[in-house]
């Protein structure tokens, strides 16, 4: 963790599972308490962090898990908090995420709310505990200030990078 006058960083690089997630979220909470004075933004950063890391913890392909070092950072620059999450996914499984993010991107606040309503009212909880709401919640909470890319690692595996911004 690196802290200076106008730049605060929280960086995590490691393997993710339920236990690691708990430890990490506790550290994030302490970091936010100490460094983010705006309560609304602090709360929103926490919500996005939980949803993104729970997604990674729940949905990482089993075979990829042991090689999947998750990257997560919170950076404060030019009056903006920038959250970045990166993890490995099988390229063949990336289409579902891409199509949802494509659907979300550029939607207005009202359209996101409608998508949230349509999804939550029909949602079935999967055995992994997901409701298919995580990315929509992230878009809702961040005012849709999200960006993403998929970087090819090889023919089968790519890195999914999600960036979420909160302006002060």
């Amino acid at each position, binding site marked *: 963790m690196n802290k200076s006058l106008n730049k605060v960083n929280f960086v995590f690089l490691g393997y993710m599972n339920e236990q690691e997630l708990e430890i990490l979220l506790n550290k994030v909470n302490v970091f936010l308490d100490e460094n983010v004075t705006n309560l609304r933004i602090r709360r929103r950063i926490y919500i996005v962090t*939980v949803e993104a890391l*729970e997604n990674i913890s729940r949905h990482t392909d089993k075979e990829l898990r042991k090689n999947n070092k998750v990257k997560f950072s919170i950076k404060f620059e030019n009056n903006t908090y920038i959250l970045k999450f990166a993890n490995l996914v099988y390229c063949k499984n990336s289409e579902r995420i891409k199509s949802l993010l494509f659907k979300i991107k550029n939607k207005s606040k009202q359209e996101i709310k409608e998508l949230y309503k349509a999804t939550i009212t029909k949602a079935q909880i999967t055995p992994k505990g997901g409701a298919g709401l995580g990315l929509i919640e992230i878009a809702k909470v961040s005012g849709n200030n999200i960006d993403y890319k998929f970087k090819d690692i090889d023919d089968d595996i790519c890195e999914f990078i999600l960036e979420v911004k909160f302006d002060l």
Partner: protein
Amino acid sequence: MSKIVIDKTDRTPELIIDTDNGFFSMQYDSRPEDVRKFYYPILEKLKSILEEIKQAGNLSYFKEKPFVFTFKLGYFNSSSAKFILDILNIVKLFKESGINVEVNWYYFEDEDDMKEAGEDFSEFCEVEFNYFIMEDDDDE
């Protein structure tokens, strides 16, 4: 008829279901490790309470006095949100069965997002909520 109290943990909310007094309360954070295991029994309990009230012919009692549902939530993840809506959809069934229900949604003064979440739930389940600002003592 019975009273059920489930203590809070780091990841699950405190729950009180007091059938005799017509009271349901959910407080603190919700991010259960196994969200289905935590919420399914609660949904089943609420459905059985509704049936009990209907079968016992107690509808008139709850026409006079409302069955109160109180939510004082700090944080809930998106999977929990789905189940909170499921609970509220059962509240709607209470109402449609002729039971007078009251839903009280609490939020901290500086947390508009939580109030907005309540407003969304109210719209989704088509049940009117009362909104209250939570004092710090309420969350202890």
